[in-house]
């Protein structure tokens, strides 16, 4: 029984990593209806910003945290300005967006590698000890606990903004129809700015937490493919869906590793993705948009 519980904790912890990352995807998808593959790059930059804040600038932990969130937010917004806005203004087919997103993600990953920062991985200075908190026979890592708390708080914060504030209302409205919202007086450009900012902020936090739990390296963007799968699984465009999808994915991966074989872990994620796309493309809680003929 304790083995099962241990794997459960492992799965939840992994799921919370995916959750923070996938929310950004869903947010962008809900409004702009395309998958922002460059999100992974933003997460990676967040991890690096946090790292350099802690090592070069020597700021205390929480300051670094906030700085990495802000830095990533700025990056995300700039990307929107430079890459997506021109396409949006020209009503480009959505596939152009995806290709540009892919291009942006390749660009980000490799510019870090080519720059003096280089491809070698870095590890965060140990802020927390590795000795776990033992509950019964089950080990709960300190960083895992922190991640869980921060993820939950940020997600609650985000949901609050979306559900209870005026700006959240405009976000929700725009996600239904950009045209209608514009007609109702919503400044769509501003809304898109906000969602990229929010998504970027969360990405920064996610990146830094990821870097602390594991290591910092330019290919972090690749891990986010998993969180993307989680977002699809939960339903692209639905925030609660992204969160639930992520937790479930984390659990499924861990249980597969724990009870079947660790080798199938990645495969299960993709099989899940394909299964969802074939049988229920809108995912668990996604919104269905029909194209009117």
């Amino acid at each position, binding site marked *: 029984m304790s083995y099962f519980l241990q794997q459960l904790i492992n799965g939840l912890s992994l799921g919370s990593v995916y959750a923070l990352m996938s929310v950004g995807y869903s947010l962008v998808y809900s409004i702009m209806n395309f998958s922002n593959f460059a999100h992974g790059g933003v997460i990676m930059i967040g991890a690096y910003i946090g790292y350099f804040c802690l090592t070069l600038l020597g700021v205390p932990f929480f300051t670094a945290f906030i700085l990495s969130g802000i830095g990533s937010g700025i990056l995300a917004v700039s990307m929107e300005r*430079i890459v997506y806005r021109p396409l949006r203004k020209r009503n480009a087919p959505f596939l152009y967006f995806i*290709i*540009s997103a892919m*291009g942006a993600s*390749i*660009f980000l990953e490799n510019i870090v590698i080519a720059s003096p920062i280089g491809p070698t991985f870095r590890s965060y200075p140990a802020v927390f000890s590795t000795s776990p908190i033992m509950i019964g026979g089950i080990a709960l890592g300190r960083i895992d606990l922190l991640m869980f708390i921060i993820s939950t708080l940020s997600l609650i914060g985000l949901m609050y903004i979306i559900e209870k504030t005026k700006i959240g209302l405009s976000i929700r409205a725009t996600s239904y129809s950009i045209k209608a919202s514009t007609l109702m007086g919503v400044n769509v450009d501003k809304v898109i700015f906000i969602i990229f900012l929010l998504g970027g902020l969360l990405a920064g936090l996610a990146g830094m937490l990821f870097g602390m739990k594991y290591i910092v390296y330019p290919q972090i963007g690749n891990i986010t493919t998993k969180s993307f799968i989680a977002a699809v699984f939960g339903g692209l465009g639905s925030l609660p869906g992204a969160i639930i999808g992520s937790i479930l994915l984390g659990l499924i991966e861990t249980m597969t590793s724990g009870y079947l074989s660790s080798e199938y872990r990645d495969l299960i994620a993709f099989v899940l993705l*394909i299964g969802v796309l*074939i049988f229920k493309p809108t995912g668990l809680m996604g919104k269905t948009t029909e194209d009117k*003929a």
Partner: protein
Amino acid sequence: MSWGYLSGILILTGINLMTVLGLSLLTGFTGLFSFGHAGFMAIGAYTAAMITLKFNILPESMFQLQFYLALIAGGLVAMMFSLIIGKLTLNLKGDYFCIATLGFGEAIRLILDNVDYFGGARGLSSITTQGTTTLTNVVIINIIAVTVLVFIIKSRHGRNMVAIREEELAAQTIGIDVFKYKMISFAISAFYAGIAGGLMAHYFGYIQPIMFKLVKSTELTIIVIFGGLGSVSGSVVGTILLTFLPELLRSFANWRLVLYGAAVIIIMISRPQGLMGGKEFSIKGIVRFFAKRRKEEVKS
């Protein structure tokens, strides 16, 4: 530049070109984007390699023939997979289709990682390289491929595919069986990719699943876009450029992918029609190009 080295790059270009040609049909002419074609290359590569490694049914002297059969088998098996995958996913909205191909591409790679019969994560090695993939082979196969492709495109079928790319709903309205043509396009692109994979396996002499990562699929799609959607000569020129340049700029290897990424974004924003702009090489076109240059020189 030593011939050995140059011929190596030309062979690599040829291999890339096979897949790019297939992708050109799928993406450039039918308007479907795939991020999983490295998966079809993998299928072709492993099938062809298994045949020449383990199923040598023909006598030693007919090894060349065995090789060609292996290539074709690789293409056919890849095509079979595409038929299954296509049946399941071509009904999806464009965006989801992309994601599904990404999923399948990765899934194929991961399955190969885990099946020990195919060498698992360490792959297959000691594949015969002598007398199999040679520059002559690759060039001839590519010429055949281009010819067939142009033939398809200029035919009624090709025009139907372009119609689907332009406006799917309208195409359906006038009676084009959209699903069927998407399938045909997908299947042919998988066939080409499969053959490319087989050639690749017999060039390197060994294959590992990690050689068919998502990045490879993305790079191939980028080449098609760079060359220009809807242009076969664009795909050819694009592949040649984008296979040679990294070799020439070896010292700037790190920056190659940075430039790729930036180039993609710039192309999408300013010149989404790519290098050739959807047009093909023709004698008239080249003459006109130089005539215009001279006119501009006179003006300025």
